[in-house]
């Protein structure tokens, strides 16, 4: 019984994660500027990978593969902010006129 509940929960998380990835790709098509597209990509990186890998850990059960999947998940969560920060810095450095795309505010 408990096994069935865990399997159903894992499958639900997996399907929801695939849906999150779908909306991230939809966001990549619907937004019109690179820095806005990065936010859609960040949704896929954070929420999508969280849901998919949590569902897969539940499906694996208590085994070595589940531990390795946790390692992949931790690694992706540590590196994805760094990667998106580097891409954003590159975009801001290379673009010629940032004020045309979005307003700049100093506080």
């Amino acid at each position, binding site marked *: 019984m408990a096994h*069935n509940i865990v*399997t159903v929960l894992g*499958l639900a998380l*997996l*399907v929801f*994660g*695939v849906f999150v*990835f*779908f909306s*991230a*790709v939809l966001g*990549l*098509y619907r937004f019109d500027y*690179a820095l806005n*597209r*990065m936010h859609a*990509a960040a949704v*896929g*990186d954070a929420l*999508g*990978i969280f849901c*998919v*890998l949590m569902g*897969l850990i539940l*499906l*694996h059960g208590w085994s*070595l*593969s589940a531990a*390795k*999947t946790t*390692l*992949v998940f931790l*690694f*992706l969560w540590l*590196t*994805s902010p*760094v*990667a*998106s920060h*580097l*891409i954003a*810095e*590159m*975009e801001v*450095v*290379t673009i010629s006129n940032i004020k045309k795309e979005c307003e700049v505010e100093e506080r």
Partner: protein
Amino acid sequence: MEQVKDLLLTASALILAVLILATLVRAVLGPRFTDRIIAVNVINTMVVAEMAVLSVGMGEDFLVDVALVYALLSFLTVVVISRLVVTRRLRHAERECGKKTGENAHGA
């Protein structure tokens, strides 16, 4: 139960593959090179998810190791490309600046 599980795993693997193809189209379409790099980053994330899904669906444990190595390599790619672009751009700007001040000195 097992049939439903297999069906859902296969379906999600197929949907992820279609999404990867759609993101590849976005990478070809993207007007600037940063759009392409963002699309490639999303593709890398989805490939890792796809490998993890396949490792459950096919019952192969080693695919998780492959996913780990793939995640390491994709992070390394983004870091190398962005460092390369930023340092080259900064050097270029410095050279332009130097040329301008040189011209001014010459004109004066």
